[in-house]
């Protein structure tokens, strides 16, 4: 049997969780030895045709139709789905737009900000459409493990990952739990 396959995706987030993962420094070597990192912002594979996975990892909230599709695809292909960071766990800072209609948000961002200058809200059919609200991952698909934090500490990420790879779903110890 080969090494467990892992994919990570970065939805509506800031990459901070992935940065925190990279901040594991030398501990990363052991982790990367133990897993087969397939699709991930780190490997720069972006086709989202996931193989059968042991672990799928999501950073970021679910804010548009593409992100929703990725989340659903990933859920189907992985045994354990893990949410990284406050955005994937709770919705995070992206949810600040949740009580403003999306048309209003787009027209503000493209027409009315102090730095807007004769733009227009993008309408290309290639571009993913915004959802009405940004949602935490578990409002879109079933989630098995949670690592909150903005970003989660490298230690918290390592703890959760090691537990999952050992076949356990564990809550983050209270000492490592934080939301900021």
């Amino acid at each position, binding site marked *: 049997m080969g090494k467990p396959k892992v994919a990570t995706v970065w939805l509506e987030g800031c990459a901070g969780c992935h940065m925190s993962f990279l901040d594991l420094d030398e501990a990363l070597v052991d982790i990367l030895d133990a897993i087969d990192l397939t699709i991930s912002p780190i490997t720069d594979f972006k086709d989202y045709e996931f193989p059968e996975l042991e672990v799928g990892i999501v950073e970021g909230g679910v804010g548009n139709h593409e992100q929703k599709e990725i989340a659903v695809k990933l859920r189907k292909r992985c045994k354990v789905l893990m*949410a990284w960071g*406050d955005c994937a*766990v*709770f*919705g*995070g*800072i992206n*949810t600040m737009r*949740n*009580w403003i209609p999306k048309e209003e948000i787009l027209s503000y961002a493209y027409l009315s900000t102090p730095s807007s200058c004769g733009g227009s809200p993008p309408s290309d059919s290639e571009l993913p459409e915004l959802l009405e*609200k940004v949602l*935490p991952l*578990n*409002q879109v698909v079933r*989630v098995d493990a*949670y*690592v*909150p934090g*903005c970003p989660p500490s490298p230690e918290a990420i390592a703890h959760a990952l090691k537990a999952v790879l050992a076949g356990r779903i564990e*809550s*983050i110890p*209270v000492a490592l*739990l*934080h*939301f*900021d």
Partner: protein
Amino acid sequence: MEAARRVTLKIDGREIVAREGMTILEAARENGIHIPTLCHHPALSNWGGCRICVVEVDGAPRLVASCVMPVREGMDVATNSERVLESRRTILEFLFAERNHYCMFCSQSGDCELQDLAYELGMDHLTVPPGFREFPVDATSSYMVLDHNRCILCARCVRACREIAGKQVLNFQNRGAKTLVSKDLNELTDESTCDSCGTCLQLCPTGAIYHRLRTHQAVRGKARKVEVARTHCPLCGILCETEVRVADGSLVAIDGVLSSSSVHRGQLCRKGRFEALEDRGPRLIQPMIRQPDGSLRSTSWEDALERLCGALMASRGTKRQKNVLGLISGGCPAEEAFLLGEILERGLKGNVVSTDAPHLFTIKKAWEEVGKSFLGLKECSWEKLDQADLILFAGAEPERTHPMIAALSKRAAMEKGATLAGIGPNPAISSWSGIWVKVPAEELPNGVRALLREVATRVTSEPVARWRDLMAQIEGPEQEEKVAFMDSATAGLLREVAQRFALSKSPLVIVGDGVTGSGQISTLRNLMFLALLKGLLLEGALRLLILKPRGNTMSSMRMGWWRLPPSASEEPLDVCFVVEDGCDSPSIEVPKTRFLALMTSHLAGPLVERAQVLIPKPTWLEQGGIFLSMDGTEAVQLFPIVDPPEGVRRGWETLLAIGGRLGMRGLPKDTADLRGRTMEALGLPSPSRQ
């Protein structure tokens, strides 16, 4: 009181002895058993709103809120069974899901009871869908923000406003999920009757009410260490006990010390809680001197002190010794007032006066006049406000000058039905419809005299006959009072105030800067007589409280710095040395002077432009010192809370150095000696509180 009956119960299998009437929570805490709470606060009435403290009793299917459930004989309580923990986690998730709690951009993160609880219960996600509903944010106050998105409706603020502050500004509006904490009849903070005492802010367990002035220094994260120090607020002479929170060497917050036994119950006022944290401009961190072109430049301590001492020495040779003037602000510690006197008055035979001298002069002279007839009278303590059934403000605007006095007066009116009455150009309490006899500032003496006569005709006790004799001596034979400046409606109000004053059991007269600041000695004396008409309080205290302009004004009074300075039109002085507190500008005009030296903490205020030499000093938080209460009976010794900027020496150290340079003998040897001699000069044994 009869001792409460003992009740025996079991909590988590332990036999506990409690007293009848206690709640399960109280019994548990008394025995070191932890039950988490949110809406509960020991300084407030029990609420039972958040349900976080649920426990299992006798295995009953329904859990009970331990903060409101009284103990009962034989009760078997489980505080952390799986069922209880499950229920708590669910309740907590509902609290998070209901509104918008996002720690990552909340300035209160790291100092939040809701967050602490989520950590304690290991809440790593929500199983219920978040509501994502928008709630309003009220950022109209200069001091606090009320963000309903972070509110859990625990009602701590509402109860604090009612039970501790006694203001009843906060309440609830709407029902169910739309419930909001609201001010008055749904006013924004700046349009409400809120006086920004911040008691709600202190008790808010989340970031729903947060500090506007120090958000950039918020306590973010678990790691940041916050030190808490006890001190007193020296800003107005009430000397409220405070808890000062310091992180990384800078001030984060000033909180009140909640206590049901203190008259103000631990509330603070906008001055003590917020204005003390306001940025007052650039600091003076190095001595500076005026250059020939008029600009200022930094210099060494050596040079600055040499120049000042040189000027002082030069004036000594000129025989015009009275041409040296020291001005001391009522915001400075008593040690500085004492040393300035030692150096300039005793050493150089100059004068020292308070920058609030006009107020002190009025007060001193009025006491002297009353003292001719009545010996041993004194002011009462502000704490008597609590017992007053009528509070008469004369020329006083406590909301501006002494917010705590305003708050306690309003509380007396709301809680005990005390009458609030005022005489003067402006209403004393803007948000309370007391009886206000509107009298222009220049007619206040006549208004007060008319009031005094009206009350005297209504009071028919023995002292009144004596009073009539006195009045006749002082002002000639009694005659029909002409109050031409008053219309009939105002005169009617005046008579009503007089009537109520005469009938009240325990009135209190509060005199403000409208009387003391304009030199109305006879008016103040008449107000003292007015208070006298209703008899004395215990220990010879008059039913009268004089609001002093600054926190430590009474120290200057005791040291004798109450005389008026030479007027501005006279011959210029040789040297004027001003010691400020860096807070306010002086209430007198600093006379013309050939050499002006200023010792202050900030490069702010009109004197900075005039001074030849500027000498830095720390703020009260950085150096502490002795401060005297408003009635002059109690002194506190404050200790420094934060470090002064590097290189800034304590005020009294600088003054001692100046005395040394002038070759003075008999100066205090060390800090202990200085404190002792300062207390001696104040006529008090030793600081009674620390």
